[in-house]
């Protein structure tokens, strides 16, 4: 069975400091993994995705994530947080079963950025 666990429900950082949002996954085969961001009262935006190519994936807004198979992790990082990064972040794994492709969502991590 495939699942995803976001290890922190809430992360708070100061502006200009690094961001680390942790995600572990469980998959019986090579997964497709995603990070989505949701700003307050807005829809979901794809930040980045891993689909068995390069293990270090660069996304939008300076975010990147590294796929580590040995640790079954896909942590999201950013070197320097900006106030506009404050949002909810979801780690997602894609389930593929025949023609059925659906997303398995983590519970989300709320990122607060303090001035």
């Amino acid at each position: 069975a495939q699942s995803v666990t976001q290890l922190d429900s809430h992360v708070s950082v100061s502006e200009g400091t690094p961001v680390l949002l942790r995600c572990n996954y469980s998959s019986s085969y090579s997964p497709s993994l995603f990070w989505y961001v949701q700003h307050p009262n807005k829809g979901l935006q794809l930040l980045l995705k891993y689909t068995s190519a390069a293990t270090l994936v660069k996304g939008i807004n300076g975010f990147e994530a590294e796929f580590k198979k040995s640790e079954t992790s896909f942590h999201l990082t950013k070197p320097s947080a900006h106030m506009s990064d404050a949002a909810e972040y979801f780690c997602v794994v894609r389930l593929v079963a025949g023609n059925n492709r659906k997303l398995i969502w983590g519970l989300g991590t709320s990122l607060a950025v303090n001035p």
Partner: protein
Amino acid sequence: DAMVIQNPRYQVTQFGKPVTLSCSQTLNHNVMYWYQQKSSQAPKLLFHYYDKDFNNEADTPDNFQSRRPNTSFCFLDIRSPGLGDAAMYLCATSRDGGNQYFGPGTRLLVL
């Protein structure tokens, strides 16, 4: 710009009064999804259309129905909204189950 559009952005309905939420897309994607997202929770898939094939999630209440009259449009019908159905409803599209593109959502309030 190609996009996923949801109307209205905010919808207020009365307890038990049927309501329809609308989603349209200009991406020409063949898969369309409806999610329910309650406050501080992850989105929950209600159902999706793969082309014309309707796929209902096992735990989606019968109160929720969907229609897809053509490739571009998909509707979410809630036959008898209860207070527990107040949520953000998100529409998404994809090409053959690939990357999903989300609309801005419709926030439903049930009085």
